[in-house]
């Protein structure tokens, strides 16, 4: 696993959190929620392969 993905997820998390605050203070709660959702989708897209890999490993480990 490439360790840089952890830093990328952290960067996205920080930026989305700041964006969220900026939008909420401007009274745009809907856009703030959409930004958070978009960030979540992007991060899920990155980690979905690793999650799948984890499940495969668990299945192989316990011979399920």
């Amino acid at each position, binding site marked *: 696993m490439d360790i840089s993905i952890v830093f990328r997820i952290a960067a*996205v998390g920080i*930026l989305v959190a700041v*964006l969220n605050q900026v939008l909420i203070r401007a009274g745009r709660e809907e856009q703030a929620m959409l930004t958070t959702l978009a960030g979540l989708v992007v991060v899920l897209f990155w980690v979905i392969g690793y999650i799948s890999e984890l499940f495969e490993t668990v299945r192989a480990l316990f011979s399920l």
Partner: protein
Amino acid sequence: MLFKLSGSLIVIAISFAYGLFCSKKDKFHLEDLREFKKFFLILTSEITYSNTPLYQIFLDIAEKTGDITSLMCKNAAYEIINNQTSAELIFKKAFLDIFNFTYLDSEDKKYFLSFSKILKSDDKNQIISNIKTIISYIENKEQEVINKSLNNMKMYKSLGVLGGLLIAVILI
């Protein structure tokens, strides 16, 4: 690595510039509204105190106002002189021709186009009272835009930088 870094910088710079442009949009809208308010105020005084023909009024206003309204008035005046169709159609066409070069919104468009219908009327007092309604609309809109712009200016600037950074992080 240098390629990625320069790409990221370009993305952030463009995003920041777009944020700056969006933050200035309200200011441009306000300037256009003030320009049209000036146009309607001069038009009211011309209609009230002088008996000059409409094309002459438009030419006079063109000399006293800014680029956009000046162009609209000149076009309207030349149309009246050359085609002599109804004043309603001429003003409508002249306004729609310049509309895409302004920052006015659809609500402003609706109000200003409603002015063209007033030009059909022969009653001077009715025209003046309708122009006053449009002027009061512009004043209300000005206040609304000023209140909105204070809030939006900071937001767009922050969004520009943060959006650029987010895109750079996602694509890197």
